[in-house]
């Protein structure tokens, strides 16, 4: 283990530079499982630890990342009316997506991990793994064109006020990733709602607006593609007339399911080649991720099932009322639109902010499903409810647990 010896040699002194030592410790324990052994208590421990748990959530999201990256490019060229086939201009779409996504991903991690390391060094404990998942989630729930400074601000807000103020990983009340999104939503609403923000690479999504390429596109990749004889980024391309960047939900609010299907086909909705936040469009991939989480028992199936039950029940109720076109949308159609599945698989199942009792998880899931759908259908300002519903029910999760626990206590006392 010469690598191990080398790494041990460069370990910074804990007293001289606590920050460096904390950072070193975080990366070292990431690379090597420590040699610590059990003391009295159990002598053998399960192979599962928090790192492994968290990283499995990240693994479950990988398909969303792949699709999200490609879809950024795909939507960009759809707006220009070019390469409209799914696999046309494959290299351009992929490269365009990566140029959008990588800075978001890097900024998220630099800012988030920086704060995390700083607080860990200050409090003198090891860096906990919470940000592993948060950092992977945040890029997926942001629009592709989000300005990086707004992103940074939102992460600083979410991590400091949402997590460190409560005492770090495991203590927070609200889902950190959603807090960062809700910050953008309330502070800079135009960057995350409406029909202007979901398609990257144009100043404005109106007919005739020119593509906005940077040095990476024209100065770096174009020469490479040229030398290979492939198609290149064309700075002269413009948004086609009549193109709208509206999401299915905005359309559904205007005119129900018919309006949605006049623009998007059901298979587009299913596979996620539609405008939206980076990672939440590909329903098939999210379902695969959710199944992975359920099979590995990393996330609670009770919360997921509860949310589906809540959604279906509320939809049936709204169908019965049926006073607006949106109320006529059936539950299967609701599942296809918007970010319900993503919220269900990755957001609501955050074990720290969810209910911690098994029966509480059902109630928690059902409430999110019901309230989220009511916000989606009834709220004219913003036709997507899961972010707000999850944050709201996060707040009440301890209350739900309280009643579950109280009933357990009462049951025990009644024995006497």
């Amino acid at each position, binding site marked *: 283990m010469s690598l191990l010896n080398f790494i041990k040699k460069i370990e910074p002194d804990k007293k001289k530079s606590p920050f460096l030592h904390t950072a070193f410790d975080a990366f070292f324990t990431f690379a090597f499982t420590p040699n610590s052994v059990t003391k009295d208590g159990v002598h053998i421990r399960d192979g599962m630890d928090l790192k*492994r748990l968290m990283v499995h959530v990240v693994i479950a999201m990988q398909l969303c990342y792949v699709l999200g990256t490609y879809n950024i490019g795909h939507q960009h060229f759809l707006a220009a009316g070019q390469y409209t086939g799914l696999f046309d201009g494959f290299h351009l779409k992929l490269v365009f997506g990566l140029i959008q996504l990588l800075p978001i991903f890097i900024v998220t991690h630099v800012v988030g991990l920086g704060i995390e390391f700083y607080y860990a060094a200050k409090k003198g404990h090891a860096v906990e793994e919470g940000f592993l998942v948060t950092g992977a989630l945040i890029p997926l729930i942001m629009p592709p064109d989000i300005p990086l400074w707004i992103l940074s601000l939102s992460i600083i807000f979410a991590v400091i006020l949402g997590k460190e103020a409560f005492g770090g990983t495991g203590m927070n009340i609200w889902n950190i990733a959603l807090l960062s999104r809700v910050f953008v939503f309330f502070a800079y609403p135009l960057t995350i709602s409406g029909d202007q923000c979901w398609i990257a690479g144009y100043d404005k999504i109106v007919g005739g607006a020119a593509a906005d390429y940077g040095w990476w596109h024209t100065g770096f990749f174009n020469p490479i593609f040229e030398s290979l004889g492939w198609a290149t980024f064309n700075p002269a391309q413009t948004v086609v007339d009549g193109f709208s960047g509206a999401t299915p939900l905005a359309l559904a609010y205007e005119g129900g399911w018919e309006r949605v299907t006049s623009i998007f086909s059901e298979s587009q909705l299913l596979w996620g080649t539609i405008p939206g936040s980076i990672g939440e469009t590909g329903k098939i991939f999210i379902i695969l991720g959710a199944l992975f989480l359920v099979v590995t028992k990393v996330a609670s199936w009770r919360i997921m099932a509860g949310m589906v039950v809540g959604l279906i029940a509320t939809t049936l109720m709204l169908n019965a009322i049926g006073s607006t076109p949106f109320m006529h949308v059936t539950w299967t159609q609701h599942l296809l639109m918007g970010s319900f599945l993503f919220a269900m698989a990755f957001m609501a199942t955050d074990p720290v902010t969810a209910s911690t009792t098994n029966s509480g998880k059902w109630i928690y899931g059902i409430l999110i499903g019901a309230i989220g759908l009511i916000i989606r259908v009834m709220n004219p300002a913003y036709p997507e409810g899961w972010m707000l519903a999850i944050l709201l029910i996060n707040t009440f999760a301890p209350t739900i647990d309280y009643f579950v626990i109280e009933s*357990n206590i009462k049951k025990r006392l009644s024995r006497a």
Partner: protein
Amino acid sequence: MSAQHSKISLMAAILLMNYPLAAQSTTENSNTLMVAIITITLVLLLWAVLSLANNLMKVEAAKNGIDTIKENFSIIPGISDFWTSKKPSYVGDHKFVSLNKGHNILLEGEATGSVEKITVNRFALLPSNFHGISPIPKVEVEVGQNVKAGDIIFYDKKRPEIKYVSPVSGEITAIERGEKRAIASIQILADKKIEYKTVKAPDSDKTSREDLINFMAENGLLPHINQRPFDRVPEPSVIPANIFISTFDTAPLAPDLNVVIEGQQLAFQKGIDVLSKLTDGKVFLGLDARKKQAPHKAFAEAQNVVKTYFAGKHPCGNVGVQIHHTAPIKQGTVVWTVQVQDVVTIGKMFLDGVYDASRIIAVTGAEISNPKYVSTYLGASIDDVLRQQTFSNDNIRIISGDVLSGKLKTMEEFINFNDDQITVVREGNEYELFGWLLPISPRPSVSNTFPNFLYPDHKFEAETNTHGEKRAFVLSGLYEEVLPMDIYPMHLMKSILNKDIEKMEGLGVTELTEEDVALCEFVCVSKTPMQQILREGLELMNEQS
């Protein structure tokens, strides 16, 4: 195909039959509602005909006395028929509890074969084995003095009536002191042939409870009984609500008590008879219903007890779990739990008038050459017991007890008072590159992120690495999966950490002891020391009450 399966298939067939019937009966201009109504009507009609026939059949069966086994003698499946019953036939009319929660940790190095008599020279009594004893008990013997098996060695100054006696005869060789002059061990060099102090045991049928318990306290039998909650040597004046004995151990590599009880049936029954005089309630026996063959007849045919059969995974053999499912501890009462070999020791005192603390110990673990059962006495020297074994390497850990709730020992130390097992495992004090992501060696886990669930019968070579660092509680719902009790372990632990006495009592701290939460501690992804926290909670509650 079992009877249940055929019944369920029959019901499915009837339901399916309705489909073509309903389809035929509809015309082209009917709507879905009509189809639904017709289908439901047909189902109800068929159901009425079937249940009429069914009832007639049941009446007929009862009249002719065919329905002797009280099974669901009907063609329509009852609710319970949808799940295959795991109840083995030998359970008979006794209560049967099947527990789904829990986890069996399968390890290499199980003790097998017949019991081997070994020579152990040194024995010791360790006062620290008893919770709540004062650290410096009054020692009645001096170094160099000769004692017989059953002679008083020490007693607790707080409760002088309860005597702790010598398991063997021989010479006192050392009285070791630990921190703050607390007595760590009283060591005895055993004679080649054990000499017993003989006493005249009272007839348990004709003696009052008070005399009986005074006799037991005087002759060192009370320390063999555990009083719950708080795990104390019982208070002689407090009458336990019930007494519980678990006759099987589901812990990793635990000894098979059917092997241990062989030839002791008489003493075991006598022990039960005596115990039944000491309680106002009953003596509950928890029996193993996991296997095809019935438990040893000493257990299965025991008299004077209420038998409950348990099937499931570890910890269903834990007496705490069994108490929870038979007669849960009520607030303000105490119960006793006794281990099988301790019942035998009590029984022999009343049969033969001697304190016979012979013990069958399972020597287990993947790191030793020859895992087996050995016969010795209580408090044997670990060095002596392991003398014939060769170890696979030097980097080992010796545990008195099982890997979940046993205690760490060195070669020079002695087996704990209540343990009937030694486990030897490898120390896992090495670094592992990306060990949390891609483990090199297979390791026991309840998590499906490992391929373990594909190989349910694989036996692991366990080691003591923590596989991660301590973290705050993050994952919920995992502990409940391995604790087959109506208890919320994480919330209980949090209430103990907050020192919230009322809440921890409400959440059932008094129903638990270390071995019950050991599996929760094993699975904990945050690597929380749950047994330690629980003990702190119990001691805190005991102080307050």
